[in-house]
């Protein structure tokens, strides 16, 4: 049976109508790939940025430390144990001490986290070398979000109050020696980075740390008593769940897009069956069974998805390629309203799986939508259909 050949003839024979439907469907196809690739790019960007600047190859946390529980932070410090101290001395890990503090700026107070880090560390891409500046009393490095929220800039002096391990409050001025840009909000917002040894002195916790970040690729992580190793899977879990939620939210957009395209196809099929009823009757008279006529109409509809892929490729490949190179830029205010730290430019990431998966989805939905109206053919009396009547 040459149903496929007949379907191709009918589809191409329909001319403009076919191409318009394919064009509408291709918009959905390309838009879904584009949006999905942006989320994939977002995931990659967020993961890379967080591992580069904060998570490294994983972190050892002092037992009891929970970055989401402010009450756990005051007591979360302990001398760095020998196995980890060796890694730190060998440049394969960076110790970080975390102390809660209050920033006084422009007559207002703001809760912050003071994080002490070795200015010479190379494990994280944080610009800690700016903390080695000797001219200033205590240098501080902050991120752009922190700078914007507190109205600070490079060279500004900020006053910070903290409480040491014995519970005594003290306060000092720091000088901002560097303002860095990062998409990792947890390394930026509400965080002031200062030299590790200065913070240890201020907190009365010599040789101590809250966490130790190991270099990327460090494995296997040995068990260290009193410290819990958190791998990057664990550390990135929240951000990935967040992106997944956003992706699911975005699926409403896909549903709307696909619905519009499917409505067009459904409508075309219904009209087509009505308009071509004489043709249907003739085909049955010529020896086609109703089932094959249904298969023919369904195939014609579902083949639109193949045409849509072709049409989409014509304009989609250059468009998406251009996006992959130039990225999608948006202002910082907009990125923060997204609820997630984004880079100023987001680069989409495409994969064969993404394109093939989207094509398969579009094909399956198109086939179902093409099939539904054809059930009416089964009820058509060929003797009426030949005369152009609907029964």
């Amino acid at each position: 049976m040459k149903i496929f050949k007949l379907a191709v003839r009918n589809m191409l024979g329909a001319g403009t109508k076919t191409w318009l439907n394919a064009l509408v469907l291709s918009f959905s196809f390309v838009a879904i790939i584009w949006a999905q690739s942006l989320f994939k790019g977002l995931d990659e960007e967020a993961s890379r940025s967080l591992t580069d600047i904060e998570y490294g190859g994983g972190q050892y946390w002092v037992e009891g430390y929970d970055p989401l529980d402010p009450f756990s932070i005051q007591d979360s410090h302990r001398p760095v144990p020998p196995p980890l101290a060796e890694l730190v001395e060998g440049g394969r890990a960076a110790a970080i001490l975390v102390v809660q503090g209050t920033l006084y700026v422009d007559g207002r107070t703001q809760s912050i986290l003071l994080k002490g880090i070795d200015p010479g560390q190379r494990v994280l891409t944080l610009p800690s070398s700016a903390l080695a500046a000797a001219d200033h009393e205590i240098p501080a490095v902050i991120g752009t979000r922190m700078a914007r929220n507190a109205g600070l800039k490079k060279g500004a002096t900020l006053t910070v109050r903290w409480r040491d391990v014995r519970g005594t409050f003290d306060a000092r001025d720091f000088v901002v020696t560097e303002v860095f840009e990062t998409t990792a909000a947890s390394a930026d917002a509400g965080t002031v980075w200062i030299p590790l040894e200065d913070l240890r002195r201020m907190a009365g916790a010599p040789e101590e740390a809250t966490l130790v970040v190991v270099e990327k690729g460090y494995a296997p992580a040995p068990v260290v008593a009193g410290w819990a190793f958190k791998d990057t899977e664990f550390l990135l879990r929240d951000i990935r769940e967040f992106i997944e939620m956003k992706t699911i939210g975005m699926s409403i957009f896909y549903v709307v897009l696909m619905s519009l395209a499917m409505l067009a196809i459904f409508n075309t099929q219904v009209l087509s069956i009505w308009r071509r009823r004489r043709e249907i009757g003739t085909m049955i008279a010529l020896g086609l069974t109703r089932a094959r006529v249904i298969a023919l109409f369904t195939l014609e509809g579902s083949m639109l998805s193949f045409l849509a892929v072709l049409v989409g490729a014509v304009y989609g490949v250059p468009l998406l390629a251009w996006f992959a190179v130039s990225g999608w830029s948006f202002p910082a205010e907009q990125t923060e309203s997204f609820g997630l730290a984004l880079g100023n430019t987001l680069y989409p990431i495409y994969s064969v799986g993404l394109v093939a998966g989207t094509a398969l989805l579009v094909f399956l939905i198109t086939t179902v939508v093409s099939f539904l109206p054809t059930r009416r053919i089964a009820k058509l009396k060929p003797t009426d259909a030949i005369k152009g009547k609907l029964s």
Partner: protein
Amino acid sequence: MDNGTIIRTQELTKVYPMGRSSIRALNNVNLTFDRGEFVALVGPSGSGKTTLLNIIGSLDTPTEGGAEVMGRRVETLSHRQAAELRSRHIGFIFQTFNLLPVYTAYENVEFPLLLLKMSAAERKKAVLDALEWVGLADRAKSRPGQLSGGQSQRVAIARAVVKRPGIVLADEPTANLDAENSHMILDTMESLNRNLGTTFIFATHDEKVIRHVRRKITLVDGAVARDEKMKTGGAS
């Protein structure tokens, strides 16, 4: 069924329900048609001509009685079996030509062959032969919209005979044509009847058609009123 008989109806009755009442379109019709006949079914509108053609063509089923076509009982056929009977043994010609609009003349004629197991080369030869028979070999690439009424009906005839069916059923084939085209069409069908031995059965009001046939069956109120041999038929 005799060797020469390819259609036999027995007490063939068709009743269409119309609300609470019903219409008896065919009433105990007993007819036989032999291979190579050139027959006209005549009668006023509503006399049952088209209904009889539809049942013989296995597009419809009788309410009572039966019809045996090419050795198959039409009333017992499944959809698939009826479709197979039509695709192998029966060609249709319609008043409104019913060409598939997006196909060329060649593709329209090729359509019935696509339903049969034929190689592309065999199909091509059969289609070109059929178009040659109806004198439209030069319009093979034309679409129905580019053809006149007469040309369209000749393409429809080519489509009906391309698979060399035993029976061609033609429902008012000349009703939409002028006199000149009607004659041309009838000459073509007569020639095919003579050369291919195909049985042609027409449902018609057209005197021009009646003048060409060798047998005329008159239906009145769904029953056979007269069944007469004609002297003026062209084919032997």
